[in-house]
């Protein structure tokens, strides 16, 4: 499997660390309540098909990436920097 890092270009899967659903980007407020936190930390859509997940280019540039991917075909549809998704532009 290969992912195209926006910084480094196409790289082998062995350079990346995986953390799971990109829901991780949407951290609830501390007082959002049990259900919101349960949904954030534990519950997953876990789709058989297109999904968005978070990868870390650990052996490369150190960027966290949001990857849009198909869990059935392993096709990679899009890779963007997580910091861009979070709207952290200067």
């Amino acid at each position, binding site marked *: 499997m290969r992912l195209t890092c926006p*910084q*480094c*270009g196409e*790289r*082998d899967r*062995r*350079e990346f660390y995986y953390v799971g659903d990109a829901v991780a980007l949407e951290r609830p407020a501390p007082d959002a309540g049990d259900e919101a936190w349960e949904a954030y930390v534990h519950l997953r859509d876990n789709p058989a098909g297109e999904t968005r997940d978070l990868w870390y*280019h*650990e*052996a*490369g*540039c*150190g*960027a966290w990436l949001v990857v849009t991917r198909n869990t059935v075909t392993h096709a990679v549809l899009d890779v963007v*920097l997580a910091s861009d998704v979070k709207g952290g532009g*200067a």
Partner: protein
Amino acid sequence: MAELIAKSPCDGLLPVEIGGVTLREVDLGHLTALAPHRGKEKSFAEAMKAAHGLTLPKPGRATGKDGKRLIWFGRAHVLLAGPAPAARLLSHAAVTDQSDAWAALRIEGEGVEDVLARLVPIDLRQQVFKRGHTARTQLQHMNVSITRLGDDAFMILGFRSMATTLVHELETAMSGVAARRAG
């Protein structure tokens, strides 16, 4: 009074030459990691140009030359190799001394691409990875920085503590390639 004696990371391990490929340790001078402060990317680039005459490299590129080089070092960092960082950079970037953190190797000779192809999971062939190209990637199980210095020459930076393994892996690959070329 005794003095502290400096030891290089590959002390006693190098140089080696196998089948026309040589591997030696190089002293790059100061190594400084620089991460521009938020919103100061542009002023940092200007300060760097003014202080050291170096252009800020794009991702995957290195600027400058032997003795004074600026190497893209990851999402947030560039690595200044050679001069001590000018004080004026401090107001534009996080400045961290890395002079002792990395083992710096130069590997060169005909067949060096074949040697690295045994260890590095990226395409380092001349037509793709040209002089001035650099990458953060892996070498066997280690995270490294690789920069092409010339047609048959690369610079490899690896963790200081892993220098023994780094040299061992490269030597093994060099002897395997040499044996094939001999045949």
